[in-house]
């Protein structure tokens, strides 16, 4: 394999990983604010992809507008999901809320399949030329900078952060935990939908596409223990690179079919390494 090809594949891995990271960040944000692992996160990704396609191809909007509206629409779905299903279940434990998100995800997936069909849709055109991977990396970087500014500069972002560090203390200083939960669902939906929208030129949008992308995002978030945004991004990118490299290197028995096994093993190793180092530090201090 020539060095150029190697670099190209590395870039594709990083870009694929950025999508996982975007999806994973949605998990992390909802988890830190509400302690819910949101199993409907993948459906936001699917909505981002499917809506982008529908708005562009069926409605005929210009591509940038279609993408923007798709992300907005998915954000609204995220907000509505919170208002209709999570908020009414006030006395429910976290585990019951998790099951609600599983039910909601089945519901959303079913509705999309029923209305817009269960077959695959054609990919969108690339945003420009033949460098969709660079677009994905660029957009992800912009989103991350925006997120950073949001959490460090805006009142709402700071309130969210406070809520995720200590909910009781946050409510003592007058932060409404429920409106923070609402915001976290909307924000997570937006992030997932962005992930879905940017990957749509490279895949065929489909009512079940959220299942696998959601799972990958879950893995990324789990690497960050659902708390660390940096950990989530690192987890996602490692996963993306690992998947690409397994195919590229093709070590004998570890043929391409074992891609997922290798990627999971790499992640588990990272995890054990990190947490045992954490334990060692704990013991030392």
């Amino acid at each position, binding site marked *: *394999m020539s060095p150029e090809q190697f670099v190209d594949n590395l870039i594709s*891995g990083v870009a694929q990983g950025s999508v996982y990271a975007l999806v994973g960040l949605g998990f992390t944000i909802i988890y830190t604010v509400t302690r819910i692992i949101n199993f409907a996160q993948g459906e936001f990704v699917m909505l981002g992809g499917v809506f982008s396609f529908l708005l562009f191809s069926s409605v005929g909007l210009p591509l940038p507008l279609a993408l923007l509206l798709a992300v907005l629409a998915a954000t609204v779905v995220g907000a509505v999901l919170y208002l209709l299903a999570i908020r009414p279940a006030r006395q429910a434990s976290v585990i019951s809320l998790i099951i609600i998100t599983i039910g909601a995800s089945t519901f959303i997936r079913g509705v999309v399949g029923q209305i817009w069909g*269960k*077959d*695959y*849709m*054609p990919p969108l055109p690339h945003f420009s030329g033949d460098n969709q991977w660079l677009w994905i990396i660029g957009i992800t970087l912009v989103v991350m900078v925006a997120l950073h500014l949001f959490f460090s500069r805006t009142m709402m972002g700071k309130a969210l952060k406070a809520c995720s560090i200590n909910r009781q203390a946050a409510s003592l200083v007058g932060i409404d935990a429920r409106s923070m939960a609402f915001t976290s669902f909307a924000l997570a939906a937006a992030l997932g939908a962005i992930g879905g929208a940017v990957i749509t030129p490279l895949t*065929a949008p489909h009512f*079940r596409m959220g299942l696998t992308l959601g799972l990958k995002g879950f893995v990324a978030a789990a690497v960050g223990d659902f708390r660390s945004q940096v950990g989530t991004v690192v987890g996602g990118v490692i996963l993306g690179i690992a998947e690409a490299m397994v*195919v590229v290197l093709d070590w004998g028995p570890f043929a391409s079919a074992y891609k997922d096994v290798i990627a999971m093993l790499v992640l588990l190793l990272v995890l054990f390494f990190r947490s045992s180092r954490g334990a060692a530090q704990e013991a030392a201090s």
Partner: protein
Amino acid sequence: MKHWLSLLLVAVLVAAVVPVVGCSESETIKIGALFDVTGPNSPLGTPEKQVVEMMETQINHAGGINGVPIEVIVYDTEGKEDSCVSLATRLIEQDGVVAIIGPSSTGESLAVIDTVDKAQIPMVSCAADERITIPVGDSIWVFKTPQTTYMAVQEIYSYIQDQGITKIAIMTDTKGFGAGGKKDLEDEASNYGLTIVSNQSYDNEETTNWDPFISKIENSGAEAVVCWGTNPGPALIAKALDGTGIPFFGSHGIANTKFIEVAGDAAEGVIFPVGKMLVADQLPDSDPQKAVLLQLKSDYEALYGEGTCNTFAGHAYDALKMVQMAVEEVAPDKETLTEELKDRKAFAAKIRTEIENIEGFAGTGGVFNMSPDDHCGLSKGCMVVVKIVNGEWVWLQD
């Protein structure tokens, strides 16, 4: 908010618990159907379900079979083996069907074999793997309609060989259909003077990054890619290959307009083996399948839209047609039929025997000649090689 939700809960529960009205106990021939309508194989299961519903209406419109209406009971298996088994039992025990059509996938078909075998109800599967009917001794009650992978591999390999190609790369889906293809592609290559220089498999539902696969193929020196899978994988691979100059050969898994839609410009020039459905209008009038194919196509597309009819609908069509023919054979008039319906078990057994006796039936998948040793009934020549030109399928006659 909670008020509104509780109303909803009550409504859903009422809808779920109130028994279905109009559950007629009048005399009908009940035929069961198990399709994956909402699961991973829903793009296959949906046309299968639609075609049997269409045929049910058509048959009953024409006065049923010998004056007795048929009732096709379709259940959604969601692609789950365990659901499939309990739904099959339900069809047999509660609904009292005399035959079962489906399931859509190989896994589900193999999972229900024990159930239909014990209950002694004939089943005509719509899944491709040859293990479903080979050896017949595993269950004499099981038949299938799709062409086996082996036939498709032979067709495409002999075409590739004719082009003077010797080095190929294969890309196969890790799921059942692709895995069956992988085995046959590997086994048959040397018989056609082909060397497999790159052998990769991919996960159809989750792969979005195809670049590393393409790099490997480019470096292997392959002169062509043979890809075995169903949508969307092959379409995305064809797209990713576009610009490398390596020709793409597919399988009968991409025999639908969806492939052309998803692959876009990259679909141009793609060549694959398939049953005759896609090129029905190009067949010579002497072809026994031509009339059947054109009829099904026009009926189906009048109902579900232009370009929707595909080979999967065809598999379910063939299956139901065989059951219909068997019933007509067992009971040539209304009196016999009414008499037969009184003893369902014996009726089912006779239907099985008649399906096994089917000879020279020109269906959509080919001309079927069933026998006690062959419960698929198709032979070489039921598939053709087609090429996509300007978004249309063109038959490449040898």
